[in-house]
Structures are given as C-alpha cells and as structure tokens.
C-alpha cells in the first residue's frame, strides 16, 4: 500500500465509490446488450462485463454470469500485462485462450487497460461475449467430442492486440473473418464488445480525473478489506465440517463407459474463517471437449459457495481471500495443458463441480447450500445451422431449458439454465426464432412430475419439439443428464432426466446420442427434453398447500402428490388434512 492513513475511508465513502464502480460495469453491460448483433448476445444475454485493478484483482462485476467472472478475468488481465509489458492508451486485446484464463474459446473477450494521463496502468476493463460461432471445425461452439484443440479448430488468441491507438488491427480482423462462420455477425458482435469495453474505459478515466487515481486505488483495497470482513463474519457463523460429494457426468466420447465422476471435498473452517474445496481427486484430462479451463475449474466451486451463503457478501478479490480451491494440473477439473480441448468448459463438467459443492454445503446445515441444478446442454439450447435457399445460418437457440435447484427457502428458479449461468440468460421468443431462422417450433412446454421433489422442489424439465423449414438442419448439442439426474440434498429427490430423439414423419421416436451433431430433415422433428432440478429437504416436509397448488396447476399429479409428498387431496383439489396427516405419519 502506498497510501497514508489520510486516505482511510469510512463506510459512506466506500458505499459511494462502490455504487459508481458497479455503475460503470452496468453501463458496459447495458451497452453490450443493446448493441450486439447475434441472438446469443442480444437475446440470450450470454456475456459479462467486469472491472479489475491494475494488479489484476476482480473489483466490479455488475450482473454477470457467475461462471464467466469469478476467477479467470484476473488471469486474463495478467496475461495481457505479461505479454505486453508496455500498455498504452488506445490498446485493446482479444483473448479467448482457455490456457490463459479465458473460460472457453467461444467466449471472445476484449480487455482494455485504463491508462492515466501519466501513462500509468490503473485499471483493466473486460467485456466477454459468447460467440454464435468461433471458427470450430463443426458449426457449434461446444465441441464435446473434440480430441484436442486442433480438432476443435477455433482460432486461439492469448491476449492478442486487436486495437492500437483506437484503430483495429485489420490483420487479426481479417483472420477472424476468414475462419468464423457468418463473419458479418461476428463483426457486429466484436464492435459491440469493443464498444462496451471502451465505455468502461471512458468512464474510469473520468472517475480517476474526478476522484484522483491514488484515492481510487486506496478505495479498491479498502473495499476488498470490507468484503473480506463480510466473508469472515459469514464463515465464522457456519458449522465446522468436511463433506465429500460426488457427481457423475454421463458417458460421452472418450470418457470411461461409466461416465466421469467428479469428487469435491468441501471443508468449512470457521476458526480460520476459510472455506476450502479440494478438487484434486479427479480424473486426468480426457480426449474430448469436456475438460475445464483453469477459469472454470476455479469459478465453478466458488459460485457454488456464493450460491450457498448470504447473497449480500460482495464477490471480489476481498471475499475471495477466504476461499481456497485446490486444483491439480492435467486434471479434467483442474488446470488443462495445451492442447487439451476445453471447448465445453463452462457447462458440463463445470456443473458437475458446482453441484456437489453446493449440495455438500447444504448437508452441513439446514438453511445453507442448494440442491443440484439440472444438467446442460440439450438440443433445445443447441447450435442450429444449415443452408436455407442458398443462405447459411448458425446460432445457438434457447427453446426451453429450465433446471433450477431447490433452495432453503424457495423452489428452484424455473429458467436457471444451468449452475454456471444462474438464470441470467433469456429464453427465445418462438416468433423471433421463426422469423430469424428457417425453423418451426411445434411445441414448448414444461413436463409434469419432472421436478426433484423436496421441501422446496426443483424446477420442472422442459419439452421442446422443433423442425427445419424447407431445408436440412444440423443440431449440435452435448446433453448431460440422460443417465445421471440432478440430485436432491437433505432428503430431497432427484429431478427428471434429459433425453433427445429424432421424430420421424410417422411420429415414431428414435433415441439419439447424448453428444452429437445430428441432421434433421425437413420432414423430421428434433425432440428435446431438458433436466429437472433437484429438491431441497424431504418431500414430506413440503407444506401441503404448496403441493396442492402444484397439483391444481398440473405440475404434479395427484398420485405423485400422495406417493411422493404424502399429501392427499379432495376431489376439488383442496388438501385432505386428515389423510395427509396419516400418510405423513406413515411415511
């Protein structure tokens, strides 16, 4: 610390500057959302914007996707500084390398160093956006079966300069345009991402000029100290304990036939005010696209911890000091070595890391943690592509994916999507999809009885059925949860499994592989079933009026209400208290 005690701030000055810092991150995000070109940015909102200190500490994240930002931005900013010892105003860097802090190669990130008038690097702003396409060998951003980064095929940019003196480095732009499908769409998204980062830079330069750079730096350290104090208080109030839980990803290409079992050991140490997660007891990297990047390997257990405790604790370098994640080099849930493929690092295995951690914390004490969230990535949120009347199309769709986990005081949030996303993404409008793409959506509905039963139940799974119009359509997806559902915790039950089928013209269903790129003909339909979320607490503890409401709404059948929840209903679907008491006593 270079500051004297004169710059010690009180709780009001901290609050004021925090509101302004968060405001900057939010302004970046608002800009990106409104200016992006592809559906995945502007409809699904699959992006994040953050502010880091010059020492690469995470400072402000606005409402970003948890898996995108908790850890990784720090490593990316450090990579930028290491690779470019002289940072100048007007620089911008493109980064998507999973070996240098990025989540996965589809998440193109723009980093801009904020340089003061004296040429000193003060902050780094980062805008990260999932691309509709990133130049993979196949038209999907989730190459579940890719043997390695070469098979993946995406161009990898480990913090490569893409703007110099505020001008595009056209060599890089041209390389992207020659490799990425629908290059105009990529160009529009690139401009939006860059624009968002530039907005952040402009705002920080103004803030520094107004407040003073040294004072801002003092602020960041004191804000981290405050956040750490909050985290210490929270952990000291938790019970001491150590829980190991496992979660198994279904068998995919290049996995063992029993799938990939992830083991997480969570240890809460109130006396030291630390939470540690040991992820070292996990298989080696595999020859497929499921391996985690370092960013995802660190962020997944951390987001599960923050999901499990008082949500008002700020998420930044300060509170992170009280968390330790142990990783192993060369592990599927650790640090990958080039050329290991991390194509699907944000979703599948990452969720199999986050889920047992939050469910383990629930086992430590009632009121903590969450059940397991439904697995991703069924065809309903796969990447669709094809050629319609000579015109190519490619995009990720969001046609029904739910999966929220039961929580200590609330049912699973319906549209959570998956653990790492936390429901921040939007769901598509069917009309907008049908207007934009040659696609026809026959059905999208929730599936009764697919919730993980519990005192607070998980979300129901979703059924969707869609077809191409006048052309063939490739659907690329990597659907975990066909075999291993989202488990409940504290006596809660598992949610429904996922599944996928080809519907033939005669209406018959042909089961399809869980990790595939399938071609659906114009007279066929893709049928996608997404996973339900796990339940929290025993179903018999669920308040009877909630069960009755679920039955009236058609979410849970009357038979299931009796058999699983121990709640009997009269014919008018009000609670039969006497029989319910009897059932629950017996159960």
């Amino acid at each position, binding site marked *: 610390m270079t500051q004297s005690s004169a710059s010690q701030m*009180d*709780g*009001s*000055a*901290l*609050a*004021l500057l925090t509101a*302004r810092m*968060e*405001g900057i991150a*939010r302004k970046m995000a*608002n*800009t990106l959302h*409104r*200016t992006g*070109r592809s*559906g995945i940015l*502007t409809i699904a909102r699959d992006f994040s914007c953050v502010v880091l200190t010059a020492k690469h500490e995470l400072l402000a994240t606005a409402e970003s996707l*948890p898996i995108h930002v908790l850890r990784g931005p720090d490593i990316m900013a450090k990579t930028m500084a290491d690779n470019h010892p002289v940072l100048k105003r007007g620089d911008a860097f493109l980064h998507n390398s999973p070996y240098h802090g990025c989540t996965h190669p589809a998440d193109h990130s723009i980093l801009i160093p904020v340089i003061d008038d004296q040429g000193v690097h003060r902050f780094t702003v980062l805008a990260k956006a999932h691309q509709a396409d990133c130049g993979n060998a196949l038209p999907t951003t989730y190459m579940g079966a890719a043997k390695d980064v070469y098979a993946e095929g995406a161009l990898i940019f480990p913090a490569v300069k893409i703007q110099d003196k505020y001008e595009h480095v056209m060599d890089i732009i041209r390389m992207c345009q020659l490799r990425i499908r*629908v290059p105009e769409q990529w160009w*529009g998204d690139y401009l939006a991402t860059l624009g968002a980062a530039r*907005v952040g830079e402009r705002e920080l330069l103004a803030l520094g000029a107004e407040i003073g750079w040294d004072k801002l730096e003092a602020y960041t350290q004191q804000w981290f100290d*405050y*956040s750490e*104090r*909050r985290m210490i208080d929270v952990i000291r109030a938790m019970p001491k304990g150590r829980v190991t839980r496992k979660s198994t990803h279904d068998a995919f290409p290049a996995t063992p036939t029993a799938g990939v079992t992830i083991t997480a050991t969570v240890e809460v140490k109130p006396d030291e005010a630390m939470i540690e997660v040991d992820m070292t007891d996990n298989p080696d990297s595999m020859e497929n696209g499921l391996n985690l990047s370092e960013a995802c390997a660190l962020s997944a257990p951390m*987001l599960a911890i923050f*999901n499990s405790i008082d*949500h008002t604790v700020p998420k930044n370098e300060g509170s992170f000091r009280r968390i330790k994640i142990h990783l192993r080099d060369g592990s599927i849930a650790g640090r990958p070595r080039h050329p290991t493929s991390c194509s699907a690092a944000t979703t599948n295995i990452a969720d199999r890391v986050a889920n047992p951690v939050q469910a383990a914390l629930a086992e430590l004490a009632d009121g903590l943690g969450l059940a397991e969230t439904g697995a991703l990535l069924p065809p309903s949120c796969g990447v669709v592509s094809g050629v319609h009347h000579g015109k190519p199309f490619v995009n990720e769709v969001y046609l029904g994916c739910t999966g*929220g986990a039961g*929580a*200590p005081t*609330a*049912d*699973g*949030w*319906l*549209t*959570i*999507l998956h653990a790492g996303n*936390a*429901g*921040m*993404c939007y*769901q598509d*409008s*069917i*009309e*907008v999809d*049908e*207007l934009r793409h040659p696609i*026809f959506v026959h*059905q*999208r*509905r*929730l599936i009764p009885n697919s919730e993980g039963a519990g005192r607070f139940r998980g*979300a129901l799974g*979703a059924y969707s059925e869609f077809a191409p119009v006048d052309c063939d359509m490739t659907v690329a997806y990597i659907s975990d949860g066909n075999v291993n559902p989202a488990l409940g915790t504290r006596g809660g039950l598992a949610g429904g499994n996922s599944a996928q089928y080809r519907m033939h013209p005669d209406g018959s269903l042909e089961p399809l592989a869980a990790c595939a790129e399938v071609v659906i003909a114009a007279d066929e339909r893709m049928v996608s079933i997404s996973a339900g979320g796990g339940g929290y607490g025993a179903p018999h503890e669920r308040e009877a009026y909630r069960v009755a409401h679920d039955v*009236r709404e*058609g979410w849970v059948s009357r038979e299931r209400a009796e058999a699983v929840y121990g709640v009997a209903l009269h014919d008018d679907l009000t609670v039969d208290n006497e029989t319910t008491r009897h059932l629950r006593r017996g159960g």
Partner: protein
Amino acid sequence: MGLRFAIDTGGTFTDLMVSSDAGVLSMYKASTTPKDPVAGVLDSLRMAAEASKESLQSYLARGELLMHGTTHAINAIVTGSTARTAFITTAGHPDTLVIREGGRMEPFNFTIAYPEPFVPRALTYEVPERMTVNGMAKTPLDEAAVIDILEQIKQAGVEAIGVCFLWSVVNPAHELAVGVLIERHLPGIPYTLSHKINPSIREYRRAISTCIDASLKPIMGAYMRGLESRLREAGFKGRVLVVTSQGGVMDAAHAAEAPVHLINSGPSMAPVAAKAYAEAGDTETLIVGDTGGTTFDVSLVRRGRIPRSRETWLGQPFRSHMTGMPSVDVKSIGAGGGSIAWVDAGGLLHVGPISAGAVPGPVCYRRGGTRPTVTDAAVALGFIDAEFFLGGKMSLDKQGAIDAIKREVADPLKCDVETAAEAIMSLATEHMVQAIMDITVNQGIDPSEAMFVAGGGAAGLNCVAIARRLGCRRVLVTEAGAALSASGALISDLSAHYQAMFHTLSESFDQAGVNRVLSKLSEECSAFAKHAGAGSLSTSVDWSCEARYIEQAWEIEVPLRKGGFESATDITSLVSDFHQMHQDKFAVSDPHAAIETVTWNAEVRCRIGSAEPGRLAPDQRAVELPSRRVRYAGAGWVNSQVYRFEAISEGSIIKGPAIIESDFTSIVIEPGSKAMRDGLGNLVIDVREHTA
C-alpha cells in the same frame, strides 16, 4: 372556456390542479382513500370549490374537462383483485406466460421465488391451430375444440378471457374466429384479442398485454362508470378523460375498453409537464426526476420527443411480469424521502431500498418511525424547517431525527451526526444518479448535455447535487413541481396509438406493402380524430417505425419523416435516420449494413385545450423568510438565507447557499450555484460552480 381539472391519485395524496378560464392555476392536495379512490377525487374538488367559495355543484358546473391519472389499475394487479382470467393459446405452447422471457437479477440470491404466471396454468387452454411466420394456416382452427373449451371456461367461473395465438399479428383470422365464438357462447364476458391490443412480435409480450387487459376490464369498467356517474351527480357536465401510459389522455369510457393502457397512468405525465414548462425545443434533452416518499421515477425528453419502452414491469424486473406495451419509458427505484439509512455488520452505509413509507414514516413525523430516513437527514441538516413543514401544517421532531441518525448511523461509522446526515444525503443522491444513468445509457443520452427537471415533494433536497454529479448545467423546478404529473395532465393531448407489424428489408423494400400498412394506420388515426377528437383545436400524427440491423435482436424506434413512402429517397432517408438513431443511442452504427423493419406506429394527437402551461395565482407574502442554520456540503454550518418560492419575482437572482421554500417543498441551493425565476414561474438553477 370553462374550468379544467387534472387529478392525480397517488398512494398517499390525491393532487388536484385547476386551470381557470384565464389560465390561472391553483393546486390542492387531499388524502387518498385506497378503498374508494373516487372519494379522494371528490374531496380534492370540494377543497377547490371551498377555496373559490362556491358550492361543489355550481363549481363543477363550470367544469369543461377533467383529466384523471389513476393507480387503480396497477393497484388491482398488485393486490390481486383483477378478474379471474382464462388464457387461450396455440396448442403446444401453453407455458408462454410461465417461461416468460427468462432473465434474472442478483445471480447469487436464491431466496426469491420464481413468479407465478399472470394467469394460472389451470386456466390456460390450448387450441389446435397454428399460423406460420408467413400467415399461412398450417393447422386450421378447430372450432369444435374452442366451443368445448368455452364450456370448460364457463364451468371454471372465469370472468374474462385473453386470446393470444402465435403469429396472429401476421394473420388474425383464428383470433377473430375465437372472438366470434366467445360472443356467441359466452355473451357478455369481456375478452381481449392479442392482435388488437398489442399487434407486435414476441408472443410473451403480446400474451401478457392481452391477459392483463382482459383481467382489468371488469374492475376498470366499473371504476370508470363509477367515476363518471359520481362526477355527474356532483354536478360535473364536462368531459372525463384518463391519463394513459403513453403520455396522453383518452375518454374514460374508451379507456375502460383497453385498460392495459392505464398501468402507468400518472408517472407518464411527468415528462409531458417537463417538456412544456422547460419549453424544450427540438434540440434540448431533459432528464425528469420525480421524487416521492418511497420511489424515484426517472423519465426523459429527447429533442422534443418522449422515448418509449416496451419493457415496463409490474414489479421488480425479472421477478414480475412486464406489460409488453409501448409506454413512456419511466424507470423507478426505491429511493425517496422515506428511504431508510443503516450501517451493516462490515461497517458499510446503506440507504434504501427499504422505506419507512407513509406509515410509520420518517422518525421526525412522530408516527412511530424509529429508523432514520433521508427526510430525517434533511431535517438534521436544516434543509427542511422542522417548525414550518408543509407551510406550517405540521411540526417535525428534529431531536428525534438527530437521535436516530446518531444511534443508527453516526455511532457505527464513528462520526458526528452532521457528517452522518451528509453521508446519507450523498448516498441517496448517488442511487438516484445511478438510476438516471441506467435509463440514459439505454436511451443513448449524455446527461451532461441535458437539463435536469426535478419534480415531486422531496426533489428539492438534492436536485442540485444530482445535477452536479450528472454534469448537467441547469436544474429546473416548476412552480407546481410538487404535483408535476397533474400539471402535465392539464396540458396533455387526447391521443391514441396504432401499430401494425410489417417485416421488410431495406435492400428489397416492399414499398407498396409498407404504404398499405401506413394508409391503414392513417385511416385509424383519422377515424379517431373524427370521433373522439371531434372539435379539437388541431390534430397531428407522429409516425415511427421499429427497425434493426439484420440479425440484430432488438428494434429501436425511428421517427418517420412522413406517413408514406413515395420514392427511393424516402427509403434512403429512413435508413440514414436509422443509422443516426443507432449512433445516438449506442455510440456505434454500421452505415453500410442493411436494416429490417418490424413494427410501424402512428400516434394521433388531438389538442383539446391550451398547450401553454399555466401559472399559479400570484403570492402576496413576503419573499424573505427568517434565516436559519443550514449545513451545506463542503461549506459547513451557515446562517442561511431562506426565500419563499411563490414570492420570488421574475428575473431576480438568488445565489447559493440558500434555501427556497414553498408550501409543498424545500429546495437546497448549494454554494456556488444560483437560481433565477423565469417567465413561466420556474426556478432555473445554474449549478456550475460560481465563485461568490
């Protein structure tokens, strides 16, 4: 010309503004009776009649127009007293209202339950039918199934029906057919068809508009009938109009048929008033802040136009439902005079969003409040005169306010009470500034180029501070700013909004098709002007189009230069206006890219009264009030001059530090700023630092 009344019913007070035949305004505040809002309306009129020493009957007989802003529709939704409503939709898609559009706030907060659908799933009915994107009936409507469903609906005791089919906006035949069947099989039951109430793309937004509209029809119909008949009984013979979410007024009987337009009745008028009082021309941009007891509402006027949004939420974003209707873009946050200040376990100060509300209210109100609020901080700093609050109608407990601030804020922060009170004001200011930045960035407005218009009873406490933070040069506080919405209603136009969906690309522009759509809209506007607008002083139509770059997801609204396309130049103009608007809003544009149009809008406005904002009657009281000790940020305690707003003469300049008080509000003129009364009675504050 007779008397014109504007009545804005709020949660606590009912504001009445009366404009006399000579254009002189008077202002009254009555208490709102939540169970019977019309009682508050009549009470406020009774106060006005008394002030003019007339019987209510003879006073109202002089009335010509009555414009009413009402929270009755939104209250009915919030309290769950809307009609039992059924939702009829396309088979295969029963969960449109359940899934909504996804999205969530506070990613790590799992304590909030997912919202129940606006219409229960148990009252959602799937009809075999399906239109395609091109308006072809891929599955014909199964009328027998509809008749069967209508029977089930009858058995279920349903009181209203919303009908929304996929792509009805391209081909409404199936919705129209269901409308006919409802009238035949369930005569008298109110229903709404989606392509009529909100003809725009995105099935969730159309469906939610439709269901909200249907659910409000019984209650708002009854309310409007009650309002009119009780006003008639009391002696009013003029025209009764209601304020819409779009910043215009419509006849009460007409509004009862499309009550979804009344969701934001009230707040939508603040920018209308601001635009008139600031005499904002085509170049000026206004940021309008309306500060009440519990909420701070922000809206805008950009170069003479009030921006619209289709994302108006009934409650918190993502945790409730949106109306899906184009409305004046108003963002609300939980910040106001009643916002509570506290310090958390880690030593961080918070102000709001929890509020002491009207009950128990701030500590100084002596109504049982124990937690310090922004109002308490203002009293502690001397911004508000504890002895002469609301023109002396209420005395405040200053010591109580000080004690609460000391206990809850100063002691935990280890500072003195004055410092704590200043910190509370600054943080409240910052929250309001952030709310303003959210809406300005989304609308692409640079606050430093704008004027800040401050309305509402608590606005004066920090309007200079807000403007300084935003970099605005000037603040405007209107004479009747404490009732900004009511003063807007008084000068608003009779208006109706018509829209149609028509998708075309700039590269292969279907000029004939677009012109067909525009001429149909034009006919609707003419019909409105001819009937509802009969006898109005003038009529105009505002044309706009919602367009986007190809592959972009969200449209932006671009004004059209005229209501038809005659040549290639007209198309080029639209495209270049789009690029310019995109550049304005987002600071980027792609001038070589083609655009696609989605929705076409026509808003017809009929002028039914004067567009000139009126003036309050002159005030004969002394301009100087006793000086008092006030603590200004950066200047410490000052023996401050205090002036009476109403008595300040036009053109005279008041230099800060000073307090300017009216019977309804207190305005802090911070050191270095200076205030001047202009010809319309406004206080215009130049907030740039001036050395004394």
